[in-house]
C-alpha cells in the first residue's frame, strides 16, 4: 500500500495530531520517505474536504478552511438540540450508578450507547476516566452538572436505594442471560 495512504489512514483513525517520528517508526520509513508521502497526500486531498496540516514535529488531518463556517454552524446546532429521551436515560443511569462502564450502560439500556455517551461528553455533562483495573473507561457525572443539579450526596437522590437495588438485581440476572447467548 502506498505510504501516503497508510499515513492518511493513521491520521484519520487517530483523529488527533501524530508525531512524525512515531509515524516513521510505525511504518518503517525514513524522513525523506515521510516527506514525499506528506507531499503526495497533501496534493491528493486538495479536491476533498480534508487537509493535512504539518508542524515541525507533527501532522494532523483537519477539515478544509472553506468548510469552517459550515462546521461551526453544525457545532452550534448540535449543542442547541436537546439530549433526547435516550440521552436523559443514559445520563440518569450514570447519575445513579457512577462510576459505570459503557458495557454496563449498554446492558441496562439494551442498546449500544457509544454515540449518546459522546454527545454527553461533548456537552460537558459527563466525564470519562481511564480505569486501570480493567483497561477501559468509567463514566461519571461532571462536577458542573452535579452542581447544576444541586446534588451533594448520591443518597439524597429520589428513590436512590430502590433504584440502585433494581439495577443491581438486573446486573446479577444479566450475567446469567449473557452466558446463555
Amino acid at each position: 500500500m502506498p505510504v501516503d495512504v497508510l499515513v492518511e489512514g493513521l491520521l484519520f483513525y487517530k483523529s488527533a495530531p501524530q508525531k512524525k517520528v512515531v509515524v516513521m517508526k510505525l511504518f518503517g520509513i525514513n524522513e525523506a520517505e515521510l516527506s514525499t508521502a506528506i507531499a503526495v497526500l497533501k496534493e491528493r486531498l486538495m479536491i476533498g474536504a480534508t487537509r493535512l496540516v504539518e508542524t515541525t514535529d507533527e501532522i494532523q488531518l483537519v477539515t478544509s478552511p472553506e468548510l469552517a463556517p459550515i462546521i461551526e454552524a453544525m457545532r452550534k446546532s448540535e449543542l442547541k438540540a436537546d439530549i433526547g429521551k435516550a440521552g436523559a436515560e443514559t445520563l440518569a443511569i450514570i447519575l445513579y450508578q457512577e462510576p459505570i462502564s459503557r458495557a454496563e450502560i449498554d446492558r441496562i439500556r439494551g442498546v449500544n450507547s457509544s454515540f449518546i455517551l459522546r454527545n454527553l461528553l461533548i456537552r460537558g455533562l459527563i466525564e470519562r476516566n481511564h480505569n486501570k483495573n480493567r483497561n477501559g473507561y468509567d463514566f461519571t457525572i461532571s462536577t458542573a452538572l452535579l452542581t447544576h443539579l444541586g446534588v451533594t450526596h448520591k443518597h439524597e437522590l429520589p428513590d436512590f436505594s430502590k433504584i440502585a437495588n433494581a439495577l443491581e438485581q438486573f446486573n446479577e440476572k444479566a450475567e446469567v442471560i449473557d452466558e446463555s447467548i
Partner: protein
Amino acid sequence: MHPNAVSNFSVKTDVFEGPLELLLELVERRKLLINDISLASVTDEYMRQVSLMQEMSLPNTAQFINLAATLLLVKSKSLLPVLELTDEEETSIDDLEERLRKYQIIRDSALILQSIFGSKSMYAPQFTPPTVPVFVTDEYCTIDSLQSAINSVINDLPQKETQAKAQIKVTISLEDMMKKLQDRITKSLHVRFSQLHAGETEKKVVIVGFLAILELFKQGNLLITQVNRFSDIEIELDKGQTPTYY
C-alpha cells in the same frame, strides 16, 4: 459437522437451538431434498430427539413439539393417503417445507457472514473528547427529569420470568399431541387404536409404536388377526373400510 452426527440416544440434543435447525440437519444428513417424502422419512428420528428434549426439560422444547405436530401429519399422510387433511393442515405442511427451504438459505448465508465477520474490519475514527470545556444543559438536566428517565429505564429492563411463563403456556406435551393425532386418524379411518397408552409404557415407546403401526399399515401387513396377537395393542378395523389399494 455437529458433534452428534452419529445418531443415538446419548446425543447432546442441546446442540440444536431451534426445530428447523434440527429438521434440516436430519434431512441433509440423509442427503435428501426438502419435500414431503424426506420429511416423512426423518420424522421418527425427529420425534426421538424431541422426546429426549422433553425428558431433559430443555428450553425451547415447546417450539420443537409444535413443529413435531406438523411433521407427524406429513408422516401420517404419507403412510395413510386416505387421511383427509383440513385446508389448514395442508397449508401448515406446505408452510413447513417452505420455512425449511428459507431457513436453509439463511443458515448458509449466515455461515458466509460468520466467516468474514471481523476479518477485514473498517474502523471509525477514535473519539477524542473536546479539550475546550463546554457545559450545555437542557430541559432534561433536572432531578425530576432524570428521576423519570431512570424509572423508565427500570420499567424497560427485560423480564426473564415473564418470558419463561409465556413459553410454558404454549407448551403441549408430546403425549397430548400424539393423542390428538391418533384421534384424528382413528376418526378418518374408522380404525380404533386402543390401549396405546398403557400405564407403564414409556413415551418413546408409545411414539415409536404408534408410527410402527402406521408403517405396518402402509406395508399392508396390518391384519386384525395378526395384530390381535399383540396383547398390549388392540386394533379394530371396519372391514368394509379397509383400503383396497395397498
